[in-house]
């Protein structure tokens, strides 16, 4: 009940014409920035930061969190329209959304994903509002051993993303691991493979996905002389509001995705990525039409997209309760809090609780506005794309080049994107799956580091994995689930011929 009164206090602060307009604009700005390849939440917040100086603290914070939330909505737009995800959690969106786009269902994919983003966002917000202190007091008991196991769980979905050739999938996963080893290794203090100074911090992940998906797709289409026919520009709003059958088909997935995203997605680091991939694996497992996955399955799009957005409010929990940022975007929010003269840490809620609750109220508003503004913006984006569809190759290359440049304001990342563009093209041509590769790039370095950190915490003793109760619990759960999975598979196999007979 306490949380509700404080939230009401927050709302009374936020519900002014100025603030409402500001939040609405912030959401729109975030959507546009997030839709540009190469620019994600971190860039969006950083670029808007100078605007907030001189604003009242609550308004400034609302602007920043509105942009943050907006970029998460915007990220799906380029994933679906030009197959160029902006960050790791949006990869699944591209894998399922882009095929829908090619079928002429781009509007439906965008509308549906906006809807599940909204539901996911609300789940996450509810947890933030009612359970933030509880969640953070338990979350700190998760240490390196638990995170290692979680990364392992995420990596195990490679098997599901593998397609029909396991050797090819394994090969690409290994290449992903190798690509992820570039740059400084904080566990040992060594710098690996810095052939040029730009590589000291490793290969930029966003440059990799811009190349692998964006440029790779352009090259492939050039060869096949694919003429993408997206239809004529139209402003018929019906095209963009998901029909009843789609909502029915995606409803369960959205709820499951929201729950999984809230539980796993709020863990700092790769939580959101692991959640989207696990949710994708789950949907595919329980689907009656698993063969549709990878070719534009509605449930495969809606579930992970809900997980993705459920994790956004979650990543704010450690920030506002302990002053610990859980993602790139929240790290910049931390800087903003300091600039506003607040002290992020365990006393933030006590010293500046009113401002924080105003920010949370702003987030609730932003989430509602974003659903509406996105449904309104979808026709704009779709029609923009349709009007240049004859020049799609040059438009996508231009966006990819400029996006890669924006990562570090240098041409180095454009070279990186080109290299991975060639890789993506060859992989697509020779039928090698990209999923295992990209998942390994994200999770392998985390798994490696958490593993070494665990052993060091245990002073060289491997028993740390079974001495810690949560870690032991996860291991048991993994073994049981794995066993159950295999058992049901056998059971189904045995039943199949019987059913046919």
């Amino acid at each position, binding site marked *: 009940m306490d949380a509700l009164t404080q939230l009401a206090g927050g709302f009374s602060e936020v519900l002014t014409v100025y603030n409402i307009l500001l939040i609405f604009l912030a959401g729109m700005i975030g959507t*546009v920035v997030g839709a*540009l390849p190469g*620019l994600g939440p971190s860039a969006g917040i950083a*670029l808007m930061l100078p605007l907030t100086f001189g604003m009242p603290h609550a308004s400034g914070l609302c602007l920043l969190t509105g942009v943050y939330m907006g970029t998460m909505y915007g990220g799906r737009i380029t994933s679906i329209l030009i197959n160029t995800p902006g960050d790791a959690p949006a990869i699944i969106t591209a894998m399922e959304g882009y095929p829908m786009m090619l079928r002429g269902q781009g509007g439906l994919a965008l509308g549906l994903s906006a809807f599940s983003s909204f539901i996911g966002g609300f789940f996450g917000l509810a947890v933030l509002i009612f359970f933030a202190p509880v969640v953070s007091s338990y979350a700190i008991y998760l240490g390196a051993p638990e995170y290692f196991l979680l990364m392992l769980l995420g990596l195990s979905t490679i098997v599901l993303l593998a397609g029909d050739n396991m*050797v*090819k999938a*394994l*090969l690409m996963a*290994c*290449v992903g*691991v*190798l690509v992820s*080893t570039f740059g400084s*290794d904080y*566990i*040992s203090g*060594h710098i*690996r*493979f810095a052939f040029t100074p730009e590589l000291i911090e490793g290969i930029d992940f966003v440059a990799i996905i811009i190349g692998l998906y964006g*440029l790779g797709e*352009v*090259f*492939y289409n*050039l*060869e*096949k002389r694919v003429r993408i026919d997206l239809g004529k520009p139209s402003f018929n709003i019906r095209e963009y509001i998901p029909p009843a059958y789609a909502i029915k088909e995606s409803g369960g997935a959205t709820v499951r995705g929201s729950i999984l995203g809230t539980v796993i997605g709020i863990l700092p680091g790769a939580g959101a990525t692991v959640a989207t991939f696990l949710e994708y694996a789950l949907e595919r497992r329980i689907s009656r039409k698993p063969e549709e996955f990878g070719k534009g399955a509605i449930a495969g799009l809606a579930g992970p997209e809900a997980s993705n957005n459920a994790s956004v409010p979650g990543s704010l929990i450690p920030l506002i309760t302990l002053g610990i940022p859980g993602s790139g975007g929240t790290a910049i929010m931390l800087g903003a809090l300091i600039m506003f003269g607040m002290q992020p840490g365990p006393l933030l809620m006590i010293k500046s609780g009113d401002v924080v609750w105003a920010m949370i109220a702003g987030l609730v508003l932003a989430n509602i506005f974003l659903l509406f503004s996105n449904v309104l913006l979808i026709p704009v984006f779709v029609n923009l794309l349709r009007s*240049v569809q*004859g*020049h799609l*190759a*040059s*438009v996508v*290359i*231009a*966006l990819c*080049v*400029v996006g890669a*440049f*924006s990562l570090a*304001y240098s*041409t180095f990342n*454009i*070279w990186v994107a*080109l290299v991975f*563009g*060639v*890789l993506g*093209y*060859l*992989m697509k*041509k*020779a039928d*090698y799956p990209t999923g295992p590769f990209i998942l390994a790039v994200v999770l*392998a370095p985390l798994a*490696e580091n958490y593993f*070494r950190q665990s*052993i*060091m915490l245990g*002073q*060289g003793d491997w028993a740390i994995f079974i001495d810690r109760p949560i870690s032991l619990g996860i291991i048991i759960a993994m073994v049981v689930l794995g066993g159950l999975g295999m058992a049901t598979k056998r059971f189904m196999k045995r039943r199949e011929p019987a059913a046919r007979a």
Partner: protein
Amino acid sequence: MKLSEIVLLAGLAVFSGVLLISSLDMPYGSEQSFGPGYIPLNIALVILGLIGILAVKAFMAGRKPGADGSAVIEDLSSALPVAAVIVLLAGAIYAMSWGSILAPLGLLMIILSWRFNGHGFVKSCLVSAAILAVIYTIFSLWLKIPLQ
């Protein structure tokens, strides 16, 4: 095995070979767990092994009686435009290191629309200029990213 697959596997083999050799300079183990060289070294070896398996499989399949030997030679002419675009893009990125990002990019876009997408020259110029103007407005004027 298709030509693209051979190029892909050869490229990956070279890549992992280079990293394999460079990783020998780094400690393989540390006091308590493995060192920075452990993962690159072992994964590079696994990659080379997997590439070997794929190559042997392809070789065996090729030796089977009745196998179509011409599968190795793929239609090169369809891959030529892609190679051309990749070279053009590389040239454009190289030109960008002299300062301007948008000028080489604009040129590349015009060539793409004109030669590869089959639009008229004037139309290609106009559309490219319009798209670049939008990009410049958003990135440079609005977001203040130093894009020239």
